[in-house]
């Protein structure tokens, strides 16, 4: 493995022909777009913005970053990029665990799946070879049984299995890919693209290989510097001490609840009151936590494996109760039963779906039912047994589930009430109500993959703690959020292209990213270059979307957030001032109403 030669081993797999060819990425692409997200999006643009997402001309890229699988801390991630069947935009989704690292150790920097297989296949990858093998025996299996199927066949040691479940096979528009650790390429419906291509699984067998880097001495030092800041007790990443390490992502639940930024009943309210405690990270740690598994090269261990000890789901052991699904399937559906939330997440994982979208489509359907708009028996608020049944129907596209498998936005439109879909560009919103965290609302609206918290995680600053001497950021102020969101988007586009876990940015700063990238690749690269590369990648994505038909006026929020004031403490009386924030944002970006002009693309070297 040679990090310095990143991008030389991209396997182009033609599913129809059953063949593969290893080709290097164009050097100017690697220089401009770094890897993972940036490089993957460049390949997707090359395939054409006009392709039908579930047609054979769409490509499905699994792309490592230049630091994936290295000894750098929190470098266990890789990206899946494609044209989304949920949004029609370009999409990228990132997965933790060990799969990306194993791809690197097996001799590849990326996989580009083209065309469509006639019958179900899986890709077996080992020692620089890719072989397509028959997958009829495991077609129809859930993710967990699929993983076991391949472990029985190849053994569990050094094996990584990425698979789609029944949802992907049945072209559920928010189907996902998951691996043996239940880590997901969760958002955007990448699993449906796999299903459309008859690609059931990617099986990689490889053992750890040490990185070869250009500047070994500097590499050792800069990795130590980065690790030291991750371990620093002042940061939430601090192993066994910081909030993220001790409680996982769900440490956020009580915070957003307290400030009136936690959506309840399909975002009709912004606080769950005292009930939030029962679905919080603190409650999970106290009552049901059994283990803290981790990803490749990660000292944080934010995953929280739980075991349910009472109620209908007693005995269920699963990983992991994260903040996003605890919200989407919890307060968002008026559900404060942590056992049912764990069950629904586990079920969603096994069917192979995005739990953020699932929770939103269920809450949308609950509101439709309450208003008498559901075509069938509907779904009552907080009816957990019915949620479990309907989730299975959605994964299998049965009955009412067939409609809801279209995703929140499209299903609400088919019900004749698009206004109850809490979605942007066809993708449902995450767990931060834009009335209580104004910058997050702008981030949702301007995300290139539809509503997303991870393109611009402004919540970090808006929740009150900022690095160095910077001034604190008021979550309820809209002024200044345009520039702030742009900086976050650019920084995280770079992190996604390395591909580092975003939680690294709770401790590391741009100089840490730049130093590690420079040492590995043997190039000069500074903190300012980080933001320039991130901006280039963000504009590349925007260009794709503009060419795909997302023009002026596409950056929106559901009217619930802009027109219906919050009634809860912390954010009472507030709405999202999206229009004012967009003016700031477009000025900072140099865009015209959401469209990136050629002059900006030329300035950044995109065209």
């Amino acid at each position, binding site marked *: 493995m040679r990090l310095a030669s990143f991008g030389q081993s991209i396997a182009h797999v033609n599913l129809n022909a059953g063949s593969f060819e290893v080709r290097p990425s164009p050097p100017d692409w690697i220089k401009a777009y770094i890897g993972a997200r940036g490089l993957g999006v460049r390949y997707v643009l090359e395939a054409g913005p006009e392709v039908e997402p579930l047609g054979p001309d769409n490509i499905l890229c699994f792309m490592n970053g230049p630091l994936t699988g290295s000894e750098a801390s929190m470098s266990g991630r890789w990206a899946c990029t494609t044209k989304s069947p949920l949004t029609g935009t370009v999409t990228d989704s990132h997965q933790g665990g060990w799969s990306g690292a194993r791809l690197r150790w097996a001799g590849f920097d990326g996989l580009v799946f083209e065309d469509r297989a006639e019958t179900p296949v899986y890709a077996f990858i080992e020692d620089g070879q890719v072989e397509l093998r028959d997958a009829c025996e495991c077609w129809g299996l859930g993710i967990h049984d699929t993983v076991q199927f391949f472990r029985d066949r190849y053994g569990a040691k050094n094996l990584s299995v990425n698979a789609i479940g029944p949802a992907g096979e049945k072209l559920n528009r928010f189907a996902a890919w998951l691996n043996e650790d239940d880590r997901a390429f969760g958002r955007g419906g990448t699993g449906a693209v796999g299903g459309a291509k008859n690609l059931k699984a990617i099986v990689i067998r490889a053992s750890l290989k040490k990185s070869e880097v250009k500047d070994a001495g500097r590499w050792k030092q800069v990795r130590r510097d980065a690790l030291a800041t991750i371990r620093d007790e*002042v940061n*939430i990443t601090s192993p066994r001490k910081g909030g993220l390490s001790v409680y996982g992502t769900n440490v956020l639940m009580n915070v957003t609840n307290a400030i009136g930024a936690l959506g309840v009943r399909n975002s009709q309210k912004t606080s769950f009151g005292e009930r939030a405690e029962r679905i919080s990270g603190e409650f999970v740690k106290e009552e049901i936590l059994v283990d803290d598994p981790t990803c490749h090269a990660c000292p944080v261990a934010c995953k929280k494996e739980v075991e349910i000890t009472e109620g209908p789901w007693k005995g269920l052991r699963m990983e992991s109760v994260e903040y996003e699904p605890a919200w989407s399937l919890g307060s968002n559906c008026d559900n404060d039963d942590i056992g049912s939330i764990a069950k629904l997440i586990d079920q969603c994982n096994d069917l192979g779906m995005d739990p953020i979208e699932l929770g939103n489509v269920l809450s949308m359907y609950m509101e439709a039912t309450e208003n008498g708009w559901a075509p069938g028996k509907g779904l009552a608020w907080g009816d957990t047994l019915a949620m479990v049944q309907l989730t299975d129907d959605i994964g299998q596209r049965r009955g009412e589930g067939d409609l809801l498998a279209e995703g929140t936005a499209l299903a609400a439109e088919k019900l004749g009430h698009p206004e109850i879909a809490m979605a942007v560009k066809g993708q449902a919103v995450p767990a931060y109500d834009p009335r209580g965290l104004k910058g997050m609302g702008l981030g949702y609206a301007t995300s290139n993959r539809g509503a997303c918290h991870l393109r611009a995680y402004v919540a970090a600053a808006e929740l009150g703690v900022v690095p160095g001497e910077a001034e*604190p950021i008021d979550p309820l102020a809209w002024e200044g959020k345009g520039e702030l969101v742009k900086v976050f988007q650019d920084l995280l586009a770079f992190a996604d292209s390395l591909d580092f876990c975003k939680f*690294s940015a*709770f401790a590391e700063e741009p100089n840490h990213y730049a130093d590690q990238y420079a040492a590995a690749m043997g190039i000069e690269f500074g903190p300012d270059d980080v933001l320039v590369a991130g901006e280039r990648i963000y504009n590349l994505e925007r260009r794709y979307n503009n060419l795909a038909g997302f023009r002026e006026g596409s950056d929106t929020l559901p009217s619930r957030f802009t027109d219906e004031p919050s009634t809860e403490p912390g954010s009472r009386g507030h709405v999202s001032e999206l229009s004012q924030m967009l003016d700031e944002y477009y000025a900072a970006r140099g865009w015209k109403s959401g469209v990136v002009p050629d002059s900006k693309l030329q300035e950044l070297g995109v065209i």
Partner: protein
Amino acid sequence: MNSVLVRFYAAFRDMVGGKEAHFEVPDGASVGDVLEAIVGRYPEMREHLINPDGSLSKRANLFVDGRAMRFLPEGLSTPLEPEHELDCFQAVAGGAL
């Protein structure tokens, strides 16, 4: 005297031995007075809550009826009303984010 409810979260719960506590403060007391009452009862929390100059540490967040104390016009001098409730969190974000 007023009895003010303060709810604690994450590791702060270990330091106070529970999810919440009441603090008696004089009529007309400020948010800062409650902060002093907290560290007076739980000295271990001082380094997590208060800077040497008496301001709120960046390692902590204090919310008054859901509004971050930092953004209240009078900050720690904000007078407490009888119905006010406080939430006290560890920092949940930092670094480049």
